[in-house]
């Protein structure tokens, strides 16, 4: 129980840290990656809270599809910038 609480607290701090990095970094790539990391930590948190179905949705859509979509758009902006 205490181990679970400790892990949850650690996850919460890590999530907050990743969110702050996403807000304050000057590099867009790092911001996108750490926003994905927030979702990944959140999905682990859902797993700890015994909600594996929600955790899978969060991992697949929040940290998978959205992060990839951001990179996709970034690549597109670069492509148009080189013209």
């Amino acid at each position: 129980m205490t181990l679970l609480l400790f892990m949850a607290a650690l996850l919460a701090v890590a999530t907050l840290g990743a969110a702050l990095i996403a807000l304050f970094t000057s590099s867009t790539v790092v911001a996108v990656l750490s926003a994905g990391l927030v979702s990944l930590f959140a999905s682990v948190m859902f797993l700890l809270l015994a909600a594996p179905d929600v955790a899978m949705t969060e991992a697949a859509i929040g940290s998978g599809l959205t992060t990839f979509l951001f990179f996709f758009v970034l690549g597109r902006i670069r492509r148009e910038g080189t013209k």
Partner: protein
Amino acid sequence: MNFTTRKAIPLVLLLLLGSVFYALFAGYTPDETLNRTASYYASQTVQETGAQNVVTAIIVTYRGLDTLGEVTVLFLTAAIVGLVLAHSKAPKSRSGSGFLPSGELLTTGTRMLVPVILLFGAYVFLNGHLTPGGGFQGGAIVASAILLMLLSDPAQRFSHRLISRIESSAGLTYVIIGLLGMLFAGGFLDNRILPLGSFGSILSAGVIPLIYALIGLKVGAEFSSILTSLEETEDAQ
């Protein structure tokens, strides 16, 4: 607006949001027992639906109409994205469209990973009634395979006709199964029009695996159609 205020505004907003959540958290006391709805689901799901995963039984059978609504919302989103982006023509081929080549690592990794990811997506939505996961999760995993293919080769084209055929036939079959439930079982989207089977096997829980496979195909097709529409828009001149 100078640099520091621009950075301070999101922090202040976050603090406000955090204080709202903290107020919720401070007033929270966990229930000692399940409430009436939850205890009904916990005790009756196995007899009534034969599903091992209670969450799936609730999503597909007890609250099946809500799921139909969610899938419809996703369909509308995909349709609107397609409609808005339909007027711009796709760059036809590699030549002249200015695609940067993707790296060797991404290309080779994609070739190896895409079949595995597709298989895992199918596994997730076919086992939705037994293990955590289901149509939405599996569909998103399938769409991430499509996204990986688009990332490694932006000139790749997918057949819109095939995607929309899969999407619409899955949706139509879903509604027809729901109507069959009204005819042969207790009501709309009742899963007992097929035998419940033996508890815990892959072909059990009546029509739940079929419905979740259809939802998986539909969600995967919808996400893929959004992604391909985004990819195929013409670059700004």
